[in-house]
């Protein structure tokens, strides 16, 4: 019986899964009842009033209006209730907890590349400890992909040119399917992998077995110097460029008088499309890195800039 149920229903392995399943079951019950009711009533009328049956067929004199109002108003109220319930859960899907681990994911035809904060990389695999919230910061190198883990009831398109985000807290250990669910070309159906959710002890053992590279932030720091970013964005630079210590999460004033929160997307755009948003008080002199820098390197630089903010809140920023 249990295996039969498992063949009809996906395993539930994240904090989101039970919430989605509750709405799903409520919808199943409601829609099942309505479909059943419509079929039973229609069948009853069909049998009772079939041609040749000896029954009363005097045309009913009742007004249509009360019926129409009833079957308009009741669905309206139920639908509003369903909307708010599902919207509330959906809203939660876009609000990761503050202690979530940031993991970068890059989609490309036809594989998933994963960058852990400690610098480890995986392809088509993601190892995470159970119970620890994870925030995926995702970008695509080519076309639109979609990071879909059925057991987590979560999915998000991975769109070229922008970061998208998906978060979950795994609640069950095991290996779960990872599918690309946005059609991305020839081997779309082979762009699959697995999420390994491990007990913290097993996870620590797994970590110990891997070669320990530099952290992602350290990698980003190296790129920050090699790419020449530090030539301008530093205290002893002769070029008037903003200092980037503690930039992440700040509200940055722009030359057009508006403000923008310096999130991953802003930093990305500043590197690839430097003239899109110009920080107030600076000349638009930064060259673009569009086409010269890989998604992984971008992620590393962003991780580096984020680490600066965490380490030493900078006083220079507050002047502006």
């Amino acid at each position: 019986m249990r295996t039969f149920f498992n063949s009809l229903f996906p395993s539930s392995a994240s904090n989101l899964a039970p919430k989605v399943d509750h709405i799903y079951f409520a919808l199943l019950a409601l829609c099942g009842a309505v479909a059943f009711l419509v079929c039973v009533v229609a069948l009853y009328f069909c049998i009772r009033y079939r041609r040749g049956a000896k029954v009363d067929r005097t045309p009913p004199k009742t007004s249509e209006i009360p019926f129409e109002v009833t079957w308009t108003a009741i669905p309206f109220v139920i639908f509003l209730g369903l909307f708010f319930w599902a919207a509330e859960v959906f809203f939660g899907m876009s609000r990761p907890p503050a202690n979530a681990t940031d993991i970068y994911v890059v989609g490309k035809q036809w594989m998933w590349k994963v960058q852990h904060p400690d610098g480890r990389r995986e392809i088509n695999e993601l190892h995470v400890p159970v119970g620890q919230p994870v925030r995926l910061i995702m970008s695509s190198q080519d076309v639109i992909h979609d990071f879909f883990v059925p057991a987590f009831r979560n999915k998000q398109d991975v769109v070229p040119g922008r970061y998208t985000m998906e978060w979950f807290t795994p609640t069950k250990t095991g290996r779960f399917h990872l599918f690309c669910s946005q059609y991305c070309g020839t081997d779309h159906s082979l762009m699959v992998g697995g999420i390994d959710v491990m007990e913290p002890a097993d996870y620590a053992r797994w970590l110990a077995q891997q070669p320990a590279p530099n952290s992602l932030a350290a990698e980003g720091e190296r790129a920050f110097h090699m790419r020449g970013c530090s030539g301008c964005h530093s205290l002893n630079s002769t070029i008037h460029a903003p200092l980037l210590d503690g930039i992440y999460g700040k509200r940055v004033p722009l030359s057009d008088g508006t403000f923008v929160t310096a999130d991953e997307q802003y930093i990305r755009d500043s590197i690839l499309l430097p003239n899109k948003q110009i920080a107030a008080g600076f000349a638009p002199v930064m060259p673009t890195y569009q086409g010269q820098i890989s998604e992984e390197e971008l992620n590393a630089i962003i991780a580096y800039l984020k680490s600066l903010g965490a380490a030493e809140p900078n006083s220079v920023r507050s002047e502006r």
Partner: protein
Amino acid sequence: MITQAPPQPEPPLTSHQSPLTYLNVRHTIRSWLLTTDHKRIALLYMVSITLFFFIGGAAATLMRLELLTPQGDLVTSETYNKLFTIHGVVMVWFFLIPSIPTVLGNFLLPMMLGARDVAFPKLNLASWYLFMAGGAFAVFSIITGGVDTGWTFYTPYSSTYANGHVIAMAAGIFIAGFGSIATGLNFIVTTHKMRAPGMTWSRLPLFVWSLYTTSIILVLATPVLAMVLTLMALERAFGVGIFNPALGGDPLLFQHLFWFYSHPAVYIMILPGMGVVSELIPCFARKKIFGYHFVAYASVAIGVLGFLVWGHHMFVSSQSIYAGMIFSVLSFMVAIPSAIKVFNWTATLYKGSIWFATPMLYALGFIGLFTIGGLTGLFLASLAVDVHVHDTYFVIAHFHYIMVGGMVMAYLGGLHFWWPKISGRMYPEGLAKFSAFTIFAGFNLTFFPQFILGYLGMPRRYRVYAPEFQVLNVMSSAGASILAVGYLLPLAYLLWSWKYGKVAGPNPWRATGLEWTTASPPPKDNFQTTPIVTEGPYDYDAQAAEEEWEHAHA
């Protein structure tokens, strides 16, 4: 419906002189290809879309064969991707969208209004030529190597990375779209200007209401499709950066424009079916339709709200979550008029005298399948649930319940209902009932397992899939083979009945409606004298029908 001109009696059958009808008025191929008679144009469309239906069906057959096993061992990935693109493009633009409007709509709209033809008969013929020219482009791109973008043409895949004749395929859809716009325009003007004396808006058959709403959507939405396909082609051919972020474009802009057309297009594909069912139920229940005005205005409400819900295709696309919420609540609202229709059809059965002829079986099948299709739409409108089932087989099952369970059932129901009018002959009733049941059974076996597959997490457009999904996929493929038999049977017996069927007479169903007051097949100009309408549609009397039937069977 009371008219001044009583039905024209058919000449006695013993006569060797057969009456002059739209079919035998002239026989040359030229007289068919240059006809401006709406009835002949309807038949031109019928032949063309049947051809396209079987092209799309062949692609689906190969896909279902491939999906029998999880390994993907029948065709290559490239071929599979081309197959589902062919299936989607052909079925959406070259079968479903034209199906009821251009075949039954063209044939019936002028007759239901009491007119001799549509407002612009030459434009009507031009629509068919545009449709065929578009179809030629589509077939060209299929024969010369195919397209692997899926029917949705998402950028930047379609504009930058895809293989094949994407531009030729898009050009085909672009050209056929102008045929749709012209048909829509023609129907709108016809409904406004060509109604017989006394045919007020409240006396219009509900089929006309639904065609009218459909026509407005065709005219307003199709140009947006033309624009978005043009922009995509410009990016693909000349590298103009519109959708590809590497060229400074925005891939989501494509999705917004595409679904701004393609969501209303869903209603282009279902409203005419609802119109057909609204004709069938009163006729075979011998009852006035319950809540005429509510059913009519529900069509209009669906048409209007249908323009405001496109973003529900984009809940996980990285569209703003607040936009997602607005699209979600509006998507729930658009379900209400559909529910109103289902309840009114069901209520019409109450105290009727129900006759289970083949068209009625299709109509009842439509109600059941459309109800399931509509209710599963609520799952997709619910934001958090949609995140899980978006782009899975759940969505595939949902829209096939609407498009195939709904629209194709309605089209076949309507085709059987008006077949005596179109051909002058009856189809074989026993065989027709058998095929209606076959289609119903085959359809459910094909698509119900896909709901379960979808919630389990099987993504759409997968050639290779996880082994635990196999049992449900085998069920689905088995159902598809039954469905195929169900679709081939009507093709065979309707063709047979064209020559050998029982002669139908002007009104074999004893139905109301102006189209039944003239001969079958109708004369070239539909009516000998212009009818004058004095009552609303669906003037049926269950008690009288019952007495009549008892009298006949006494």
